[in-house]
């Protein structure tokens, strides 16, 4: 009977937890957090080589990108990615977008990426990772999915751009919008540990080939 009571308690909690989505705090994990950032060499939309190792000693933000994803579209047009990269690069941060979409998948077309960069006034490069090897090395699952690398080359933040999973900044969990990347960069600039180091990314799945 005692075991049955335990079972009923567990079931009761499961039922309570599944009844509404509104206030759930999603669980989060990352295979790279606290570890050295996996190195990579990718080409930008103009065919130039971009190597992560070239930014040694600098703070780097990686933004997994897909211009066909409505969450990316909203983040760049009305949400937390509007001007964040521009503002932060002025502070000396290196910001790189990475598209791990396989050829033929949504948002993988080079012309579509070029058009999106123009439309959203993106001054940072979009790197192409058609094989998906870099995305998989970082455990990138969504677009947008953000990673912050500190000056020592360690991944100190992995997760969502913010706590508003509509991409528009209009439905923040807990009522107050938090831009997690801004917060992490503020922590780094202040010389303190990143307080929120992992969150669960939201948005579209990364369109890997296999």
């Amino acid at each position: 009977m005692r075991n049955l009571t335990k079972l009923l308690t567990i079931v009761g909690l499961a039922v309570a937890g599944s009844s509404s989505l509104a206030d759930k705090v999603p669980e989060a994990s990352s295979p790279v957090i606290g570890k050295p950032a996996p190195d990579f060499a990718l080409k930008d939309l103009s065919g130039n080589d971009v190597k992560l190792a070239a930014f040694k000693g600098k703070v780097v933000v990686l933004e997994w990108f897909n211009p066909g994803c409505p969450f990316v579209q909203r983040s760049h047009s009305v949400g937390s990615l509007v001007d964040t990269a521009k503002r932060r690069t002025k502070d000396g941060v290196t910001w790189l977008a990475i598209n791990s979409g396989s050829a033929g998948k949504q948002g993988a077309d080079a012309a579509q990426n070029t058009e999106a960069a123009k439309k959203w006034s993106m001054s940072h490069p979009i790197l192409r990772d058609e094989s998906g090897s870099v995305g998989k090395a970082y455990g990138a699952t969504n677009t947008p999915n953000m990673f912050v690398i500190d000056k020592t080359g360690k991944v100190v933040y992995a997760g969502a751009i913010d706590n508003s999973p509509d991409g528009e900044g209009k439905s923040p969990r807990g009522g107050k919008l938090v831009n997690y990347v801004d917060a992490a960069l503020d922590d780094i600039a202040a010389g303190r540990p990143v307080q929120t180091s992992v969150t669960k990314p939201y948005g579209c799945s990364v369109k890997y080939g296999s």
Partner: protein
Amino acid sequence: MARELLVFALVAASGCGGCKKSESAPTGTPLAGKAFYRVDPGPTSPCASGSTCEARVVLTALGDYHVNKEYPFKFVGDPAAVAVDGEGSFALDGAKRGTLTIKFRPTAPGNAKVVGNFKLSVCSDDACEIESPRLELTIPVS
């Protein structure tokens, strides 16, 4: 006794006390929809003037699409129509279906019009979609 309790617990966990779940799409004319989703009127309950009433709509993802369970589904009421309390609450009912419940307080008997936009998202393996169809619900008020 123990076995009965276990059966009760499992039924409760399924979120469906004795009803038969179906993943098939509803028929008839939807309130809104596209090739990958449809929104239909949900179950109704009696509504009296001056009390808090509930309107429900059911979202069904069509084809290869499923309901995006991470999305903050909400109803943004039209200020010109009957006032709604909050932004509604959304409950999943399987991978392809969910119900949005909208609370409102009618001030007079007759037909109350609940009007607004339902912000929703459905995804397939290849794409996610965010939609915001305008809904107009007529609820009889006693």
